[in-house]
Every structure is written in C-alpha cells, then in structure tokens.
C-alpha cells in the first residue's frame, strides 16, 4: 500500500530531447487533472466522513437542534441502552450462533471443495454462493413461505440465525477454500500420511494450521455481516426477536434524532473493533485475505522441513482466482 511509483526519471532525460516541448505542453493539463483529483478526494472524504462525525456528535449533544452549544451528555446513550439493550444482546447471540453453525458447516465444506478438483465440486461451489447473488429480500420471502407457519421456530431467534447462516455461509466457504487452494495441501497431507499420520492427526497438524488465517478472515466477515444484516432480518423478525439493525431502523423512524444517533454510536462501537482487526489482517470486505497470511501460520505446521523445502507454492501469495473474483453483491444493503 505504501509502494510509490518511482519518480519519472525518463522525463529528465527526455527534457533534453527534441520531444521535450511536447511534454512540457502537457504540464498545465496534468496540473489541472491533479488538482481536480485532489478536490474530488477532499469532496469524497467530506461526503463519507462528515456524516459519521455528525451522527457521533449528535448522539452526544444535549439538543441537536440547538447544536453543540447546548452541551455534551451521555443521556441519549443511556436511554438507548435502556430501551434497546435487548436488541443489542439479541444481535450478539445471533452473531455467535451464526458463527458457530457457519464454522461447523462451512469450514469442512471449504476444505473439501478446495481438495476436490472435479467439475461437480465447482458446481457445488457456484451453487453455495447463490444466496449472496440474489437480493436478501428474495431469500427472506422464500424462507418465510416455507417455515413461516412453524410458530415456535418463527418466533425464536433461531429463525433469524437460519437466515444469517444461509447468507454468511458462502463467505466462510470461499475464504477457507481460497486459502486451502493457495497452499498445496495435497502434497503436505501425502507427506504426513506417508509418515503414518491418520486423517484426524493431519487435520490438526497440517490442515488447520494452514487454513487458520482463512478461517479467521471468514469468521470476522461472518460476525460483521451478521451484526449489520438488515434486509433479511427485517422480514424475518418478530416484535420479540429484534436485532440491532432492526432496532436502529425503529429508532430512526420513531425516536428523536439524538437517540437514533446515540444508537448509531453503539453500533459503531461494536463493529469498529472488528473492522480495525480486519483491516490490520488485510481482509477485504468479501472475506478474502488480500495480503499474504502471517508467517506464524506456517511455523505452526507440524512438519517444518516438508513445508519449507519441498513446497514452493506455500510462499506465493494467494494467487488463486477465487481470492480476487468478487462474485457476489454486497449483502448488507
């Protein structure tokens, strides 16, 4: 990210050549272009960042209409915690349950798909990603059409968990499959097996240590998505099963702007740490690792000589096509 293109040394050489006048003729144009880019960048920063700052301030001021002069207070935050703590807790439960189910189902599936070079495996992979290629509204209507009449299930948080799992599973599968495909697991496992390691031993000493960064990236994505999911959740929720974003919509629609803002602050406070960790690890919004996974991942491999000497592909950054191919729309909207 910090890599800069080298300064155009060619220019200084070219300046002594006959073509030099042509180049300098473009200087003003380049200057204006640069100025325009800088202005657009500032405008974009204002557009994206100012409202965030405004909503944080609004949640902390005594009276937003009168402005900051009315003083700062934590009253609105307390009011939100009093009114909506149930929905915040519900969201945390839902995210935890979703993560547990997605880990249990998606992790083995991602590994199995990456280890299977068959056409059927690619087909299954394509199919599993479908829920994020379709708008959440369609999936929610479909789930309601089949399971809406089971009232015990319908009125529990599990109904929402099911929707979230359907929606987040593809991210875990893709993330794990991409990292498993970028490491030559087959060779590593054959080495381990030739030394007598059983399937379970290989899982713990070869597969999991190698796939760990992908699992972590997938898990962070799943939790972030689940905490912010609205499209599905709004259709699936009942008055007893409100999640954080559902409460947000409720607060925006029916409460004063300070309460809505204070609730937004709470949402920021819960998701920002996750986002910061994701950015530090280099996880992009699709749940893929952008940079090379941390070195420690390889040091933990049970078979160091095999991993470091005989397998050059371990060192290449994820050149798997899946890692750079955004196949799905943004699920949060």
């Amino acid at each position, binding site marked *: 990210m910090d890599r800069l293109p080298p300064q155009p040394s060619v220019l200084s050489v070219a300046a002594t050549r006959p073509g030099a006048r042509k180049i300098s003729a473009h200087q003003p144009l380049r200057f204006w272009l640069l100025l325009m880019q800088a202005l657009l960048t500032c405008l974009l920063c204002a557009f994206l960042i100012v409202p965030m700052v405004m909503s944080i301030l609004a949640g902390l001021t005594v009276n937003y209409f009168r402005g900051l002069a009315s003083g700062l207070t934590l009253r609105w935050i307390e009011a939100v915690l009093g009114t909506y703590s149930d929905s915040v807790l519900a969201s945390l439960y839902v995210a935890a349950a979703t993560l547990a189910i997605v880990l249990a189902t998606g992790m083995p599936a991602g590994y199995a798909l990456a280890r299977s070079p068959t056409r059927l495996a690619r087909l299954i992979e394509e199919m599993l990603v479908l829920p994020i290629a379709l708008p959440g509204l369609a999936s929610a209507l479909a789930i309601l*059409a089949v399971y809406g009449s089971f009232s015990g299930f319908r009125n529990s948080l599990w109904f929402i968990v099911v929707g979230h799992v359907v929606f987040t599973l593809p991210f875990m599968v893709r993330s794990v499959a991409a990292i498993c495909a970028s490491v030559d697991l087959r060779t590593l496992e054959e080495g381990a097996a030739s030394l007598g390691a059983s399937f379970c031993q290989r899982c713990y000493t070869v597969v999991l240590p190698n796939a760990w960064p992908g699992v972590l990236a997938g898990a962070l994505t799943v939790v972030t998505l689940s905490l912010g999911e609205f499209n599905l959740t709004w259709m699936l929720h009942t008055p007893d099963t409100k999640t954080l974003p559902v409460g947000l919509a409720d607060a925006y629609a029916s409460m004063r702007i300070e309460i809505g803002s204070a609730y937004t602050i709470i949402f920021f406070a819960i998701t920002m740490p996750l986002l910061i960790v994701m950015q530090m690890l280099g996880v992009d919004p699709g749940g893929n690792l952008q940079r090379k996974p941390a070195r420690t991942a390889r040091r933990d491999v049970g078979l160091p000589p095999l991993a470091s000497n005989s397998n050059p592909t371990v060192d290449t950054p994820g050149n798997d096509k899946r890692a750079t191919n955004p196949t799905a729309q943004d699920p949060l909207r």
Partner: protein
Amino acid sequence: MHDLTFPLRWRVVLLTPALAFFACFWLLPIARLMQISGDGHVVSTYLSVLTNRRYLDSLLATVALSVAVTLCTLLWSVMVGLFLVRHAFPGRRVLVALLTFPLAFPGVVVGFMVIMLAGRQGLIGALTLALTGDKWVFAYSMAGLFAGYLYFSIPRVIVTVMAAAGKLDPALEEAARSLGANPWQIMRDIVLPALAPALTAAAAVCFATSMGAFGTAFTLATDIDVLPMTIYTEFTLNADMVTAAVLSLLLGVVTWAVLALARNLTGQAAAAAA
C-alpha cells in the same frame, strides 16, 4: 483423479452438513417461492405482473437509478483511487481506512448518514440556508436514494481500484509520457484498459447491490418506488404473496445475470493476466 489422502467417503462427510443446510433452508424455500410465483398458471401470472404499469415503472426506475449510481461511482472512485495510490501524504493510511469503513454499514445506517447530510436538520440544508437563503432538503427523494447508494458503493469500488492500480506497471505510463502522450491519452490507452477487468467486476457488484438495496430506501422513505420497496409493500400492506414472489424472483434473476455476465467477461481476462 485418485487422491489417496482424501477418499470419497471423507469428501461426502465433510460436504454434507453445508449442503444439507443449504438445501433445507435455501434451495427448498426458493423452489417453493417459484411455485408460489407460478400460482397455478405461470404465464398469465408473470404476464399480468410484467404488463402492470406500476411494477414496470418501478422496475425501470430501479434500473435507471442503479445504472446512474454505477456510472457515477466508477468515475468518482477511479479518480480518487488513482490519486490515493499515487500520492503519498501523511495520514493516508488512516484516511483510506476511514473511507472504507462505510463498507460494513447496514443500509439503514447509510440512510441515516444521508439524513444527516441532506435531511430536515441536515448539514446541506443548514449550509444552503445560510448561503442562498433557500434550504435544500433532498434526503427523502430519489436524489437522497442516489446519495445513499453512492455512499455504500464508492468505498467498495475504491478498494478495488486501489488494489488494481497498485499492480500497474509505472514504466508503461512513463514510456507513453516520454513519447508525448497527454494525460487523457495515457488514461484512455494505458490505465483504463489495465483496470478494465477489475472495473467490470466492481461495476456489476455495484449495480446488483443497488438493485437489491432495501435498508437505505426503507430508512429514507417508504413511498419511493424502487423495486425492493414495491416488493415489501406488496408483501406487508397488500399481503399479495404471489406478486411479491414474482417481483423478487425477477429482481434475483436480473442481479444474478449481471453478476454472472461480468464474471464471464472478467474471468477470462483475469486468467489471462495471472
């Protein structure tokens, strides 16, 4: 291919949980939704929805809005993305991090951000009131929706542009410059072709997301007729499950087709570049 360390038995065992869940809670429900949308006589149901003026208008408005958002997003993101990749200044990392935070905002929060900017007590309203004596409030209209969709589309496309632009070979541009190409020619002949696969994919995602976005429209106004809002109204207010099913499947087919098309276009290009 025979794989000694990973027999078929284990493959089946590992894939079954995910597939079972998927079949049970997505495939089966979607099949049921298709069945409902048919309502016994498929052709006439779909025809009556597709020839209905209101639904058609809603579909066209949604497509037009999404196309406009996609074009504007691409233009703005390419300019800013290239600027951020090429120019170092203090605090750039933090700035980039801040610019990408909106990626994790739900649609409702994006809607609220637009209200903060252009709502009744918004910043733009206050500024224009002070400057021109006229208060601009456009959050609760199509323009507000446009701003909201830009708000969540731009960060994603900027991430893509920055990743792709970081891989550009600066020597190509230097060569073009030394041969006398002006900045527009460099942009047209070198930078844009190199970014094209990434931009195509990003445009498709941007379009599909805008088509299906529900939370933003829900927060801003319930009477803007974009397709997701129409589906929602049909389902909740009119309790018309058949129409809601037809429209949501239609929406799903459009977004899926656009994404699949972009993937076919860029899949080959990406493979060639790799």
